[in-house]
Structure formats: C-alpha cells, structure tokens
C-alpha cells in the first residue's frame, strides 16, 4: 500500500502538510462565517419592535410590516457583512436545533404577550414580552452562530 503512494504524485509528507494547511484554514474560515454580535442584537431589536407594534393602534399594521422588513433585510445583508454566503440554516446542521428553538420560543412569547395585551388592555405587558422575545432571539441567535462556526471548523 505504502509503495503505491510513495511512487505517486504526492508523497506522505506532502499529503500531511497539505492536510495540515487545510486544518489551519478551517479555523480562519470559522471565524469568518459567524455574523457579528451586533447583527444578532439588531435581529433581537426588530423582534422587540414587532412586539411594540401591538400598541400602535391604527399604525399597528405598519409597525408589523416595518419590523418584519427590518428582520428579513438584516438576513439579506448578512453576506455583505460577513462577505461569505455561509449562514446557519443552510450551512450548519448543528444550528438547526437552536434555530427551531428560537423560532418556537419567540412565537410562543409573542403569542402569549399579544393575548395578554388584548385581554388586559395594559400596555405594560408589551415591555416584558418585548424583552423576553428580544432576549430569546439574541440568545438562540448566538447559539446558532456558534454552531455554524463549529461546523465550519470541523468541515473538510
């Protein structure tokens, strides 16, 4: 087995040094793949903005639309910021779990908060709802970025 490869286009030392180079590049790639913390924080704030839209009366729909557009827009500008197309949902299998938890928990918090707001007609309800929804989005968002970086670091 050994003699075949020693006589081939790459000897063992060359092959080992090339694999080591790839391993070193993985660390660089993983730091490039993750989005900066402030982008995740802005995602959280757009979710908080969505929650506060419940208290905008006749401007409620505009508030929902604007905060949803900001949320989607932040996702769309991600490649401009990281300068790669790596992102948690499509690049990382590890990121799916925190991603699903982020979605489910944020929807549940917003649903309960909106229900309480309508039932009690108390604007203060929106504050804890917004803080919880924003915190959940940021927390799981950071988990997703860590999962992405880990998957990239352990890739080919």
């Amino acid at each position, binding site marked *: 087995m050994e003699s075949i490869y020693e006589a081939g286009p790459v000897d063992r030392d060359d092959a080992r040094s090339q694999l080591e180079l790839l391993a070193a590049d993985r660390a660089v790639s993983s730091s490039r793949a993750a989005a900066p913390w402030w982008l995740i924080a802005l995602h959280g704030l757009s979710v908080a903005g969505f929650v506060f839209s419940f208290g905008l009366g006749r401007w409620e729909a505009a508030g929902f639309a604007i905060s949803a557009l900001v949320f989607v827009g932040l996702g769309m500008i991600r490649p401009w910021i990281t300068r790669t197309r790596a992102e948690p949902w499509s690049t990382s299998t590890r990121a799916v779990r925190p991603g699903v938890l982020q979605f489910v928990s944020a929807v549940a918090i917003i649903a309960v908060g909106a229900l309480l707001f309508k039932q009690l007609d108390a604007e203060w309800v929106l504050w804890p709802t917004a803080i919880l929804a924003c915190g959940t989005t940021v927390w799981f968002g950071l988990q997703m970025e860590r999962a992405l970086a880990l998957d990239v670091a352990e890739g*080919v």
Partner: protein
Amino acid sequence: MPGKAVARFDETIHGVVRLRVCGMLARLGATDFAVIRDALGVSDPTLSKHLKQLEQAGYIRVQKGLALGGRTKTWAELTDAGRVAFEGHVAFLREVTGD
C-alpha cells in the same frame, strides 16, 4: 460528504493555493475575493491566476457584482464538479497519509 468521497488525485486542485481556495469555498460557500486573498496571504494577481485555472476546469464560478460605493466585488463559488473533485482529492490525501 467527505467520508463517502472517492479518493482521486486531482492535478488542478493539487496546487497548494488552489487546494486552499477550494477548502475555503467548500466550507463557506460563495466568498468574496478579498476574504480569500487575505486568508491565504496571497497577492491579487496570484489569486486571480489560480481562480482562473479553477474556473477553466469548471470547479468554481466567479461572479462580479456591485458593492457599496459603486465598487465591483468578485465572488467565487465552488461548483458541484469542484466539490466532488475537492472531496476526492482530500480523500486521496488521507489515504496517502493513512488517516
């Protein structure tokens, strides 16, 4: 999946710069020219030359687009053929080292 790749030496990918470019693109997907250049520590002409070789082999796609300030940004992305060739080459290297 790298574990299932058929080990095959690839002359085009064998060059260290091209191997590293393919490695970055395999992990990150489409990536900005400047990011690859900085990560590899090579000059613009050197990277352009290697990207052209990979593009001619059908292993990458190079796309140009506008960036903020009207500047042109170049993005490179591994093609399916490039991914197969890269994973096969890495599998070959692992066979050689006995990993």
